[in-house]
């Protein structure tokens, strides 16, 4: 059944779109946005793995026996907040690169370095 793996394939497609932006584009901001897409695709992958058919959100309620897997939720919940903190660090580095080189384009930075 094709639809059984649909989520995982979309995750791979998203990951590759992010990957492509990271390696092709010369603009550092664009690379970071690509990395962000890459990262979100991993989040979606984990949450998809944790889904259980017919299950509900993992908050214990009387009379419900089937819950989705809480463990991926814990991992991804913290990963999102760690992700924004590390993204901020990367953006701070970009700002300093702009200060030092006057540009955030990779090619131009390389040319300045070679001079």
């Amino acid at each position: 059944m094709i639809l059984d793996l649909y989520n995982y394939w979309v995750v791979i497609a998203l990951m590759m779109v992010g990957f492509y932006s990271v390696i092709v584009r010369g603009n550092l901001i664009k690379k970071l946005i690509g990395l962000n897409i890459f990262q979100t695709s991993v989040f979606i992958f984990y949450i998809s793995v944790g889904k259980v058919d017919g299950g509900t959100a993992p908050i214990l309620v009387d009379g419900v026996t089937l819950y989705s897997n809480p463990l991926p939720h814990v991992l991804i919940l913290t990963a999102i907040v760690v992700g924004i903190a590390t993204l901020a660090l990367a953006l701070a580095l970009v700002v300093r690169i702009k200060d030092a080189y006057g540009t955030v384009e990779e090619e131009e930075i390389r040319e300045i370095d070679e001079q």
Partner: protein
Amino acid sequence: MIDFAFVVDIVVLALLLVTAVAIARMKDLFAIVMLSGIYGLLSAAFFVSLDAVDVAFTEAAVGAGISPLLFLSVLKLTGRYENGSHSHAIFALVLVVVTGLALVVGTLDMPAFGDPDSPASSHVAVRYLEESGREIDIPNVVTSVLASYRGYDTFGEAVVIFTAAVGVLSLLGLLSGPREGGESPVRMGDHLVLRLVSEMLIPLILLFALYVQFHGEYGPGGGFQAGVIFAAAIILHSMLFGLQPAQRVARPPVLRALAALGVLVYGSVGVVSMLSGGTFLDYSVLSEDPVSGQHLGIIVIELGVGVTVASTMILIFFAFTSRSDAAHPETSR
């Protein structure tokens, strides 16, 4: 059988893919950042449909709120357009397609989506779901796992967030204090609709953040979610009324102390439980009754996480905006 949730799943994933491709193709970074906000909101909606309500909270506040704002304040410093240089585009496309195909081949023997017997859902997760009601006695299993069973990991994550904020502040510095030269003529706060709506919304957002913080044991919520929601309210305020009024309420020196204090509170709970005869972050020894000890430990460490996350997010935002305001005072709010 095709049910409603499944249709939502397919449609939202397709929208995510379209947004991602649009982001990859465009060159106007401002539009890209706006699209990335939409991308964040879509993924939050997707997490709700997959029962990950706690994750959806966080993604909505971070992916659709804080992260686009950080990008925008950096764009103000680095320029709106990329010059569109493509290096080795064909080679990269081949590489990406080959990698993607290899990964697709790798998925072929994965368990089907939603399979209750998949390895991921049949080992330790079952134990958490069956035993946490008795051992910790709070309904939200995500909070039990995050704060108690895996409290050690969460401590590490709180430290990472704190460290990242230290890194940002040491790279950018924080230009505080009132700026010379008076206020610029155009302020977002002068728009009547924006001002009224935000005056109504900001108190509600703050209140909601506190609810999420202290109700995290019973419903979706907890320190991480509450921290980012709280920070979003302060950030919204500084977007509309300028950096100085926001910094009068959330003073940077106080925020710096609070960011460290949150981590300290978390770590102290671990030390206190060691001194009480347990292992690091074993809350059962904090009280006569193991279950109420667990409750006490979880409330305190969630508070530590909430304080650290909220103050680091606000500090990071202040660091970026104070720099872009200093670089372009004529366009500051």
